């Protein structure tokens, strides 16, 4: 289950759009142009079940997303989905990890306050006794050069 974003949570001027998310969900997104820079030396770590529902987050995830741990656990990972991210990127992610492979890419993530942050994300399937029991996603500080390339590329992928 995922809730629409609420104006009272947003910091600064915002735009509004409704996104179709993975799993047939729709969400009203309120987003701003305010970037939070990725903290040096930290990793953002989360784990989901096979359906992409968050089962574990670390403190860096909580701090960067702006949500509480309780708000994150049980929510779909697409709670971070920013409207500037092309759907093809996430299709590629799911197509890749469902074959048991690792996926890596540069992602613009949405914060609870409508702002955003860029990450270099790696997702791998958690395989236990031959069965995929979930996925672990680890985000690290991206190269600014790569981010600038993505800022040019992603709008062309819609």
């Amino acid at each position: 289950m995922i809730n629409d974003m609420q104006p009272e949570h947003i910091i600064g001027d915002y735009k509004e759009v409704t996104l179709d998310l993975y799993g047939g969900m729709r969400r009203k997104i309120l987003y701003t142009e305010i970037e939070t820079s990725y903290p040096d030396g930290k990793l953002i770590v989360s784990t989901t079940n096979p359906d992409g529902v968050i089962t574990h987050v670390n403190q860096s995830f909580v701090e960067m997303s702006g949500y509480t741990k309780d708000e994150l656990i049980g929510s779909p990972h697409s709670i971070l989905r920013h409207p500037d991210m092309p759907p093809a990127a996430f299709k590629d992610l799911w197509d890749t990890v469902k074959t048991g492979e690792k996926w890596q890419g540069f992602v613009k993530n949405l914060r609870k306050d409508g702002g955003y942050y860029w990450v270099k994300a790696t997702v791998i399937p958690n395989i236990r006794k031959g069965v995929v029991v979930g996925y672990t996603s680890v985000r690290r500080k991206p190269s600014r050069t790569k981010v600038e390339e993505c800022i040019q590329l992603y709008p062309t992928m819609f």
Partner: protein
Amino acid sequence: MSFIFTVSPDFTPDHLSGWYIFNTWLQRQTDVSIHLEMYNNFNDQREAIRDDKVSLIYANPFDAAMLVREKGFLPLVKPAGASDEAIIAVNANNPIEDVAQLAPGIRLAFTDDPDVKMMGMIMLEPGDLDANNVQGISCDTYVLVAKHLLRGEADAGIFLAEAFDGLSDMIKKQLRILVRSQISVIHHSLMIGPKLLERRDGFQKCLIEMNNDSKGQGVLESLGFKAWEKVDDEEMLFMIDLMDTLSI
């Protein structure tokens, strides 16, 4: 029959005698004959593991995946409250204030400590630096990494945070930290191999209780640890998954 115990070659030199004391303590507690074999480098140690010579290992997290997936090892314990963290440091006179200001072609000093090098290289990525565009200077110890920085022979160095913190104040004053990792979930672990697996519960119990008596506390002190903390199978598998995401 004696089982081989070995320690990740990146152990702090000050604790060498501590590992021998620990091995004696462990044999007395478990009634198992264990020989401590210290290998000079990671390659020699990995060769011994490949040849199934090792039954007990204080392992670098980088080797955990191979030990679990290929050799059937399981985790026992880790040092309580400790995790492996890395530091990128420069000479204090270097005007650079951010990793992103380091230019391709820099001379980078590091040791062959695999998890620390990996974490360090990840922290250099925001500056568009990778193994292909830095000049690596491989060092035997972190003191030598520091010396290369002090002499101006290296532009940046990768340190195990614990080793950097343990440098003398005089050396630290001449260095400056650009970034320190705060990953928290990557750690060395004591792991047990297939030949000793039936003794796993017993080993784990005596290790977890080790800090409850003064003799055990003394041995722990000689290793620089406060206590051992249980590592369950899922925690180890989670760390291995995490290391997998970081190694690409």
